[in-house]
């Protein structure tokens, strides 16, 4: 029974409600870092990491501070500050613990603070009522992880296509951003095919 709930959340955040392609969250890094597959993978893994940790910590902040003292209206301020601090801490921790990983993910970490998908997943955890439900912590974790994996998937698909585009013969005025947006639109059209699925 419980496993089914978690699988549904995981599947829907990766495919059906993909944060980038169907909810249009995190578009700036999606377009900015998708020129090469290597950096796309680095950014994707950094986002999975930060989103999962941010989901867990904002769960505790919301449940044990904001709800308990009835200051829910401070949600936006609390969450953005928490996310900014988490990103800083994660950056310092990775730097100390694994210099190899830091070289791979380091430059992407500061960019994640203004990735609206991270704040988006924290806010959506609250709005979808996960935090007050019985398995709240696990549900928010799964949603954070799934959202990150969905972001990685979208980023990898996009960077694969964009690498091929470099050799393609594109009309001059369509080069750069315009063709990227149109491709993102076609990808998102493909992801709409998942919308009919349900368990």
């Amino acid at each position, binding site marked *: 029974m419980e496993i089914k709930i978690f699988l549904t959340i995981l599947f829907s955040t990766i495919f059906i409600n993909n944060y980038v*392609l*169907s*909810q*249009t*969250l*995190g*578009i*700036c890094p999606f*377009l900015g870092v998708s020129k090469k597959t290597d950096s796309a993978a680095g950014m994707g893994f950094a986002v999975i990491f930060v989103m999962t940790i941010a989901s867990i910590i904002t769960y505790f902040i919301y449940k044990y501070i904001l709800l308990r003292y009835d200051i829910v*209206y*401070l*949600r*936006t*301020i609390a*969450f*953005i*500050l928490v996310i*900014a601090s988490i990103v800083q801490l994660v950056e310092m921790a990775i730097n100390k613990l694994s210099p190899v990983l830091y070289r791979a993910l380091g430059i992407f970490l500061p960019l994640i*603070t*203004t*990735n*609206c998908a991270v*704040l*988006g997943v924290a*806010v*959506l955890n609250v*709005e979808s009522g996960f935090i007050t439900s019985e398995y709240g912590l696990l549900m928010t974790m799964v949603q954070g992880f799934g959202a990150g994996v969905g972001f990685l998937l979208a980023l990898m698909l996009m960077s694969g296509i964009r690498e091929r585009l470099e050799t393609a013969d594109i009309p*001059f*005025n*369509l080069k*750069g*951003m*315009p*063709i*990227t*947006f*149109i491709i*993102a*639109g*076609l990808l*998102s*059209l493909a992801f*709409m095919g998942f919308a009919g699925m349900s368990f």
Partner: protein
Amino acid sequence: MSVKKEFFKGLVDKNPVMVLGIGLCPALAVTTSVSNALWMMLATTFVLTCSNILVSLVKNIIPAHVRIPVFITIIATFVTVVEIVLKAYQPEVYTSLGIFIPLIVVNCMILGRAEEFASRNGVFMSIVDALGMGIGFGLTLTVLAFFRETLGANKLFGYTLIPGFEPAGIMTVAPGAFITLGLMLWAMNSIMTSRKKH
């Protein structure tokens, strides 16, 4: 530095969405109807103007290495104000814009203007800059929303346009947003290149 130049740069030369490519998430997400786009413009311009004013007032007090957290806190405060006011007086707008109201905090345009302009210029110029940028952002959203609402729902401000016309529903969902913005950028590039030739 003239007032006119600072105001109009946000509308054309440095248009946040079309030229700089920032603030794209709300531009794609809330443009399903023109009224949503206009409310988003109002909310974002309010936050941008207030944060620019406050940042330019306190710019000399903030130590350089903690300026980004301070800017984010200032922005988040005004976003909370918008959230509370909309929830109280415009509950319909609050539900239809949804999570994109709290997400104004991470609109890179606002932090970008605080860092790039308000922390280096006086209060009056910062207001002019904020209004120009906010309106430039909002106008792009309105144009995008105009195409999406008329083609995707056959409506404008909720009124049916052509009776009996079957709208293309794809325009109101995410793919329509991406493709319409792509075509708008294509059109803009074409205009720019044809201008350069003459």
